């Protein structure tokens, strides 16, 4: 994966597979702390301790469900290569949080990449799920929340092509500032 945003797209798909209704993608990009911290939180069905223990091993996929696979091990490897780490907290019936940290100045830390496209892709794949994205730097914080859009759109679904195009444009504007 060449961008952090591609890892996030991949890991957030696990939240959807777990039946999440709310997904939060939280990033803190700090020059002062020389750290990029990422949290992906969901309210999906969660994992028990046994599954949690082996979830970052590649090839533990249960092929009947294809629920897991290379995504988490790749993300973990990317974080650890930079001196960061990956941690997962999960509770059955409550949800899962995947946290990763990257040493910001490390040469192997991937660029953030196209987060607008990642969010648009997630919404397109799961238009009924609420997504919250927050991006925090030392200076400021930007946030995008699908619940706010839904209030305006009323019964028009988020995966309408014109709506997705609007979201893409809106996110690009947000990310530029």
């Amino acid at each position, binding site marked *: *994966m060449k961008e952090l945003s*591609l890892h996030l*797209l*991949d890991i957030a*798909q696990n939240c959807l597979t777990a039946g999440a209704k709310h997904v939060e993608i939280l990033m803190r990009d700090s020059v002062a702390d020389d750290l990029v911290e990422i949290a992906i939180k969901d309210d999906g069905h969660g994992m028990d301790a046994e599954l949690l223990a082996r979830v970052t091993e590649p090839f533990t996929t249960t092929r009947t469900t*294809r629920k897991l*696979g*290379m*995504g988490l091990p*790749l993300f973990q490897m990317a974080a650890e290569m930079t001196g960061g780490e990956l941690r997962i907290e999960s509770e059955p019936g409550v949800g899962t949080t995947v946290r990763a940290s990257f040493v910001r100045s490390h040469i192997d830390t991937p660029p953030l990449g*196209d987060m607008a*496209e*990642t969010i*648009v*892709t997630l919404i*397109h*794949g799961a238009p009924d799920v609420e997504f919250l994205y927050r991006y925090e730097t030392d200076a400021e914080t930007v946030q995008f929340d699908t619940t706010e*859009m839904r209030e*305006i*759109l*009323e*019964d*028009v*679904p988020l995966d*309408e*092509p*014109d*709506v*997705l*195009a*609007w979201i893409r*444009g*809106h996110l690009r*504007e947000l990310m530029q500032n």
Partner: protein
Amino acid sequence: MAKTIEELRAIREKMRGQIDLRQKGEDNLRVVVGMATCGIAAGARPVLHAFTEEVRRRGLNNVTVGQAGCIGLCQFEPIVEVYAPDAEKVTYVNMDAEKAARVVAEHLVNNRVVAEYTVGAVEGLK
């Protein structure tokens, strides 16, 4: 910001009359892009974007674009499947954004399968 919210409201008003039309249409074409780890790593995200944007730009109301998991041919990702009524599924492999635009123009609009991009055209896979 106020202006962009207005744009969103305008989209809502425009869409209201059209949604039922699309969902009830009988000649619906369905495009599915593989978006598992293998697909994403191989470049599926820009392929998906190209399909959704081309379909929107051309106003193809009979086409829906969706996402799927791993199809099981990871070495040929990005993979795109096209489902049409009364036709066999067509599987496109090693896709990119430019190929996606051509598939929209030739297959989705003019009903001519782009044979050279299909899995059947891949050497040694028969």
